[in-house]
């Protein structure tokens, strides 16, 4: 495992109405690592992702991303540093084609503003062509190439998830956060997602992944972090974590 840490979360907490959703959580993700976050419903997994990406403010603790303190930065600033998130609920942009949706992903690393757009400067045209081509590559990767010109909000839910993934990839992220990307996907879609994640990992991308399906996680993750009631109850290689009595208890407790 590479040494340098891409993301380091230390002592982060967040409560809602006096109840902690995330409590004193610390974890660190190495560059190029695929780390899974699992835990029962309501354990605080999505909240943790929102704290990392800045959509929620942490009450305590600090977050460092490739050496930058990011816990006080707005979400779009963190995105520009290279964090991309695919949300649990589909958030596809309406009134746009599938390709345009993916092109939005490149926003943080492109520059054309209102003036060069209004005047249609040559540089703007060149940028647009490049972004569109890159969006098409991302669509190809997630298997949506033939949907490129369709209105995005007409896609079935499974494809909307894939679309978000393409959008995240079009940002050329350094850290990809996936919140339950496989939920609602059928067998072959799930398989396609798994092999895409493997491909991205082989390309050296750091990935933080929330997932309920333990088999899916065991196959993809280098490491698993288990959250329960907002706290980390286990952190280690998949085989070790799966045998952990605390983890078993948390999951059995939920099942009963």
């Amino acid at each position, binding site marked *: 495992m590479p040494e340098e840490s891409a993301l380091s979360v230390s002592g982060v907490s967040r409560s809602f109405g006096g109840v902690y959703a995330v409590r004193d959580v610390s974890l660190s993700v190495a560059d190029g690592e695929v780390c899974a976050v699992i835990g029962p419903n309501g354990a605080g997994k999505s909240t943790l992702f929102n704290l990392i990406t800045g959509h929620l403010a942490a009450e305590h603790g600090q977050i460092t991303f490739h050496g930058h303190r990011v816990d006080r930065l707005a979400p779009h600033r963190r*995105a520009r540093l290279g964090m991309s998130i695919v*949300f649990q609920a589909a*958030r596809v942009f309406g009134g746009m084609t599938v390709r345009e949706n993916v092109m939005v992903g490149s*926003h943080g690393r492109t520059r054309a503003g209102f003036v060069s757009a209004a005047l249609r400067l040559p540089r703007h045209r060149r940028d647009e062509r490049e972004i569109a081509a890159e969006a098409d590559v991302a669509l190809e990767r997630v298997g949506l190439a033939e949907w490129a010109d369709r209105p995005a909000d007409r896609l079935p839910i499974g494809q909307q998830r894939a679309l978000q993934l393409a959008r995240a990839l079009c940002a050329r992220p350094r850290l990809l956060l996936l919140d339950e990307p496989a939920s609602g996907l059928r067998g072959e879609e799930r398989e396609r997602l798994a092999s895409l994640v493997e491909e991205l990992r082989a390309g050296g991308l750091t990935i933080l992944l929330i997932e309920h399906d333990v088999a899916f996680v065991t196959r993809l993750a280098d490491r698993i972090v288990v959250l329960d009631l907002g706290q980390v109850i286990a952190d280690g290689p998949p085989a070790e974590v799966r045998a952990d009595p605390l983890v078993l208890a948390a999951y059995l407790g939920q099942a009963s």
Partner: protein
Amino acid sequence: MTRFVRPAALLLVAAVTLVLPATLDDSALAVYILLGLAAIVTAGVSLLMGYAGQVSLGQGAFYAIGAYTAALLSLGGVPPLVGLLAAPVAAAVFALVIGTPLLRLRGHHLAFATLAMQLILLSLAGQLEFTGGDIGLQAIPQFSLGSFEASGAAAYAYMTWAGLAVVMLITHNVISSRPGRALRALATSETAAASSGIPVGRYKLVVFALSATFAGLAGGIYCFYTGYVAPGSFPVLISIQYIVMAVVGGLGTIWGAVVGATAITLLVQGLDRLASLPGMPTYAPSVLSYAVYALVLIVVVLFMPRGLVPALSRRPDRRPRR
């Protein structure tokens, strides 16, 4: 097919726009000019509401700022062209300054705050000395450029519709590009937009300023055309009217502003004739226009929620842009 229909339709519209001023009498020309000016302001409202999801009930204030700016500069001896160009700039600067605190508000809070802004500006203009108080500013010089002087109404009609064409072109170019995609994205989800690296607050502020720029330009042309400006020229009703026009035409459609402005202007003209028939009370015109705005808004929202343009240009496979 559509590749030939669109340019042909554009040419036809351009031809009609160019020929109309030559054939209309002065009272019809006045309607034609006011319609064009309203369409310019409405294009901004449509951009703001349709793409940035913001409602402004104070667009009349930016219109007034443009008109007063151009009027004050021209009366001060500045060349009219400079005054005309300063009008949208002043409105934009004002929008940037006031938008910074205002845009923290959402939905109807923002609508009321912008309405309050217009009321405050109007009462200031009615009391301050340099704006001429309630009487306003009079004897504004004709618009001129070098040796050309715009003396007849037809010249202002061309100016107005050229301005509208520029505004529509800018809107089209912005919407179909990177900043436009960002706007359409944040209209759907500010969270998802921010996580794509879009500075949501700054973008809302810029669209607010852009919509004010359009209104300011219209105000500038208006002051040269009428030759005077007064607080009474910018009632709150005018801001409501722009919203009705934008909604009727279809929010966030490029042509919606023109179609909406035309439909409402013609309707109001017809009603004015009706209300000024002998035997009608003096308050009939304003009561009728309020009633009609309300009625039209309700009917459109109920039966054509996307507005006239999308309803008329229904294409089965391609859903029109919001």
